[in-house]
């Protein structure tokens, strides 16, 4: 499987890239009722915007993602951007054809205005005082970025997981600005179980003595144990039982049984490593905010909980993709979106990709998955 996933030799990475920042002076009235007077959106672009501006693709990131979707920041970077296998010359989102934009979400910790930014009214970091933003707020802020970049309508808005929810919200809030919506491993709203997992993650952070009600930065500490635990919980839910078994089984680090609580099974050390690398790059306040934003996502809420009436507002063409072993956002959840779209005769295609890698499959270069994306994007007129 892994060897099959290796890069097709004819495709290339976009190479070295540098993030850019757009300062948006337009006040943003949030769903919560609060207003952000001005804000910065940090983003990356790959490829070239054509003369008519018709070849732009918006990539929306998920919970722990950021604007660095493809390429490398430095020649000695160990890893490329999080969706590098999908974006680049001759890759599924072919940068020879498309101009790809990936912003860091408002409230994030990758460079856009968020808890780590200075609050202009207090001159201190926002920290826990950064308002909770919703998927709708993100779409609104991204639409301002599109205005700045001269993009009247997106050839496609695309994302996996929370990113797929943004693509869905875009198709509803700006039907005329989205020609294709590609919704991968997403759901029309979180299930009770999804919210429960988010709550456990949040409690892990909130219960860390270093959390200090969110003001940890001022004390020069961080709730790393809580954030690490939150990530470990999340990570297990992004993988499948079979996938974990195939990767680690019951393999041990040392053949001697320790009769203690240090990591002995490989899966333990793997999870701890995942947690530790995460705390070095992620902010706990952003983690809280992003999980809350996931909980609140429910576009049908304003339409008497009728998803069919909700999706009727869209005019994009849709591609919906799920993964067989994804139990966090299962194929059945994607089918809810598909069924709602069928109700109002929307153009929609749907497939469930066979994969053992759970929710995280959307980040992997699974051949069937990438071939469908490739053919779909080849069919988009620009």
């Amino acid at each position: 499987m892994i060897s099959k996933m290796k890069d097709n030799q004819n495709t290339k990475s976009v190479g070295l890239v540098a993030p850019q920042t757009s300062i948006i002076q337009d006040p943003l009235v949030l769903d919560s009722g609060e207003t952000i007077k001005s804000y910065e959106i940090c983003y990356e672009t790959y490829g070239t915007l054509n003369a008519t501006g018709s070849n732009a693709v918006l990539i929306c990131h998920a919970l722990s993602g950021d604007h660095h979707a493809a390429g490398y920041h430095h020649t000695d970077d160990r890893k490329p951007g999080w969706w590098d296998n999908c974006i680049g010359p001759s890759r599924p989102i072919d940068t020879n054809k498309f101009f790809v934009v990936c912003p860091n979400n408002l409230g994030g910790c990758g460079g856009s205005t968020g808890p780590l930014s200075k609050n202009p009214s207090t001159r201190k970091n926002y920290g826990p005082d950064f308002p909770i933003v919703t998927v709708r707020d993100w779409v609104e802020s991204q639409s301002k970025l599109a205005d700045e970049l001269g993009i009247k309508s997106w050839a496609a808005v695309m994302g996996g997981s929370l990113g797929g929810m943004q693509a869905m919200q875009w198709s509803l809030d700006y039907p005329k600005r989205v020609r294709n919506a590609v919704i991968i491993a997403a759901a029309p709203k979180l299930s009770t179980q999804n919210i429960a997992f988010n709550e456990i993650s949040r409690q892990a952070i909130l219960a860390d003595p270093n959390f200090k009600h969110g003001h940890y930065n001022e004390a020069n500490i961080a709730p790393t144990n809580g954030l690490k635990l939150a990530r470990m919980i999340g990570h297990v839910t992004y993988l499948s039982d079979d996938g974990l078994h195939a990767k680690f089984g019951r393999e041990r680090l040392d053949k001697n049984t320790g009769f203690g609580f240090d990591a002995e099974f490989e899966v333990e050390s793997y999870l701890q490593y995942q947690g530790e690398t995460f705390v070095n790059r992620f902010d706990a306040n952003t983690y809280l905010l992003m999980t809350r934003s996931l909980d609140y996502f429910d576009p049908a809420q304003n339409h008497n909980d009728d998803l069919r009436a909700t999706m009727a507002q869209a005019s994009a063409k849709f591609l919906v993709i799920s993964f067989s072993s994804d139990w966090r956002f299962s194929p059945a959840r994607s089918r809810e979106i598909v069924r709602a779209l069928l109700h109002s005769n929307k153009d929609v295609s749907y497939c469930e990709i066979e994969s053992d890698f759970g929710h995280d499959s959307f980040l992997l270069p699974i051949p069937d998955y990438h071939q469908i994306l490739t053919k779909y994007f080849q069919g988009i007129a620009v």
Partner: protein
Amino acid sequence: MKISELRPELFLIADWIENHSKVLDLGCGDGSFLAALQKEKKVIGYGIEIDIDNIKACVDHNVNVIQSNIDDGLSDFENDSFDYVIMSQTIQAVHHPHKTIDDMLRVGRQGIITFPNMGNWKCRVQLALGKMPITEYLPHSWYDTPNIHMCTIKDFDLLCATRDINIKKRATLNAQHEKIIGMPLFPNLRAEIAVYKINRTRSD
């Protein structure tokens, strides 16, 4: 591909479909039939497929395709939501043909079904010689075939009669894949492929 270049029974079906109608194709294959209908008949079309390579081909043909197993039912689709539900050369491969037909006629106002006619003389000769038939339309060995529910024209007529299904039109194709014109003699013996348009009288 143009309609005129399609398999003969598809060419015939296309003639039965009105312009600008809404069509669901069960087991739509690579989507070339729906693509031709979209282009030449301006239909709103959706296909259902289970095979991932066929799904890729449908996406390539710019055809809406939903990956689904027909044997699991058509629960994604609402009552009377299509003008036509088509099942071409697929009925013999589903687990419960009568239930699939019920679902077709629930979702669509009309159903169009084509199947290889087991009553054809070539099949009868092979059976008379003591072997399961193998023909151009039934190329598989008995032990390795997706075709698990073979029937004859007479069988299908009986099914319709017992389940209150109206046969609105029937056409048959002979061994040369030409339409057998007029009121054919011995259709169950001569036809290689049967094509039916069916519906169900609604009580409401």
